[in-house]
């Protein structure tokens, strides 16, 4: 009961934060101008400000949830789509579509990017399976380097086709381009988050390891495949629509796990809320620091996320090994 109360009060806080973020920006959109029936302000609100806030909430919540799912599947606290090559693979897929089938519609692009993301994640898992790495920190290290190799391949391809600049602007997360009509696919990842919530208990059991999960009567491979699909599609959609949000899926689940533990059904609402809130705060920060210009959220997240990640690593230092 207290849990439900806490979640709903956090939800209310997030709603207030979101409402405040709607009124932050270069153009003059305030409750007063809206009340006066200013048409310009109303258009701005419905075409730009509201879609942006919704996109932030959806992308933040779903990326954090994808992170926690991946941590359960790999059984390692330090993995997330941007530390195992999933996000880089999605970027490669997007680049391939842009070069060889530029006329393809957005759903097609997302399908290809998701396919690449899935393949990249599967490659990472294959590397892990080939070598049972016992050290907790080696797993994300291999993943980051795998992402680096995929990124170098992508950069070479982009260089050959003169798309370097396009590539870097895609891969840096940025919500300033979000408008009505250009973010609706994010509802899809919102729906995936609900799917995760429905099968949360299975993911928790998978997190106990293959043998335990199988002996408890769980179809291990099926749940693993579902989890991989959720993670890949989520990161592909987020990369295609807004760009990468580095470390988000790693930082939020770790902090939540310290506070409320590892039962996914219990912690999932907190992960989703925390992800949405962190992205919202970082985005508002990016809009305010250098007003009237904007700093892309990918950059702000990189600084904040790396700092928290380092803190997590050093905090656990004695028992990590």
């Amino acid at each position, binding site marked *: 009961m207290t849990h439900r109360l806490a979640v709903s009060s956090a939800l209310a806080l997030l709603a207030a934060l979101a409402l405040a973020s709607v009124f932050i920006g270069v153009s003059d959109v305030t409750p007063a101008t809206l009340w006066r029936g200013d048409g310009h302000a109303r258009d701005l609100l419905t075409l730009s400000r509201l879609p942006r806030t919704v996109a932030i909430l959806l992308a933040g919540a779903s990326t954090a949830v994808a992170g926690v799912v991946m941590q359960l599947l790999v059984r390692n606290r330090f993995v997330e789509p941007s530390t195992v090559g999933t996000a880089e693979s999605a970027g490669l897929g997007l680049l391939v579509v842009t070069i060889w089938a530029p006329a393809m519609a957005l759903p097609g692009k997302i399908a290809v990017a998701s396919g690449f993301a899935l393949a990249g994640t599967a490659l990472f898992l294959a590397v892990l399976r*080939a070598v049972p790495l016992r050290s907790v920190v*080696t797993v994300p*290290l291999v993943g*980051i380097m795998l992402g680096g190799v995929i990124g170098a391949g992508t950069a070479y391809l982009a260089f050959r086709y003169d798309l370097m600049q396009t590539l870097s602007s895609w891969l840096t997360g940025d919500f300033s381009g979000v408008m009505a009509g250009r973010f609706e696919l994010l509802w899809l990842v919102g729906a995936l988050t609900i799917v995760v919530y429905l099968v949360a208990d299975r993911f928790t059991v998978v997190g106990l390891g293959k043998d335990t999960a199988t002996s408890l009567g769980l179809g291990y491979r099926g749940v693993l495949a579902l989890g991989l699909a959720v993670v890949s599609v989520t990161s592909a959609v987020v990369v295609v629509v807004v760009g990468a949000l580095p470390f988000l899926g790693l930082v939020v689940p770790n902090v939540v796990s310290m506070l409320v533990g590892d039962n996914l059904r219990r912690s999932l609402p907190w992960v989703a809320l925390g992800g949405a809130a962190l992205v919202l705060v970082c985005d508002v920060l990016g809009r305010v620091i250098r007003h009237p210009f904007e700093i892309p959220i990918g950059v702000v997240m990189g*600084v904040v*996320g*790396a700092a928290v990640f*380092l803190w997590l690593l050093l905090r656990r230092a004695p028992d990590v090994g």
Partner: protein
Amino acid sequence: MSADLVRARPTSPAPLAPPPPAATQRRRERLVLLALGVLAIAVIAVYLVVNVRAGWAFVLPFRGRRVAAMVLVGVAIATSTVAFQTLTANRILTPSIMGFDALYQALQTALIFGLGSIAVVRIGQIAEFGLSAALMVGASLALFGSLFSSGRRSVHLVLLIGVVLGTGLRSVTALLQRLMEPSEFQVLVSRLFASFTAVDETLLALAAVVVSGCCAALWSIRRRLDVLALGRQMAVSLGVDHRRTTMLVLTLVTVLVSTSTALVGPITFFGLLVANLAYALAGTHRHAVTLPTAALLAVVTLVGGQAVLEHLLGAATVLSVVIEFLGGIVFIGMLVASGRRR
């Protein structure tokens, strides 16, 4: 009787110990160094004279500057990596993987951001390089000194911390660059993104002085480095001031990395490739051999790779991407191998 004794003396130790390998090993080292030296000169000559379309008076100085930059960068990266790996007793860690060059770029950006481009231009290139190198040494000693001298932490943890630190520093650099005035940003770009194609002459001369100074210093402590490689306890019991040597080596490495980053920007995996190849070729861990072998190997790979890409494939600027791709794969392989051994 006496004939038996004479015959017995030389034959008796033979089954116990195989013929001493020292002589063949020395011969191998000399051969490797000689071959690499000849190869380096050949590659440089080929790069300079092949495919000349414009007049010699233009081509030779133009390519000469590039070759000089590549040689300096190659030597700096190779020697700093070998010294750093001795310091950390590990073949996977390199300064650039630990985020040293990201630190340099962040500091340089912060310098221009803090002082303004006019002040930075006014104090002159040499003073500015000195200032950023000094800042860099201070920052890296503060950041990494405690990480290495304690020796309690696992290598993989240190590595992950370095990688994450590098990512964070690159984000800080990007953030500061977004905050800058466009005119200041222009100045910064000309400082940070110099490449082999456009190297400034003053900087080149400065770098030559710094790199040869650091290399001479490393060469003069090569025997102490051999002892350091035996591990902290052994080194201390053999009479090496471990803490002071560590700080000295870390300082030299930092200055070398700053120089190469100032010349051409970050090349993450090059040092890893060259250093490990050098150990395999030299077949020894004596720094009198590994340091020059790695340096020559770096020159051969860098100039040779650039010559092949530029003259044969017509794609000059992608060398760093190729190195990144190959180096990443080698790095994963080494990580996996070291994970298996544990």
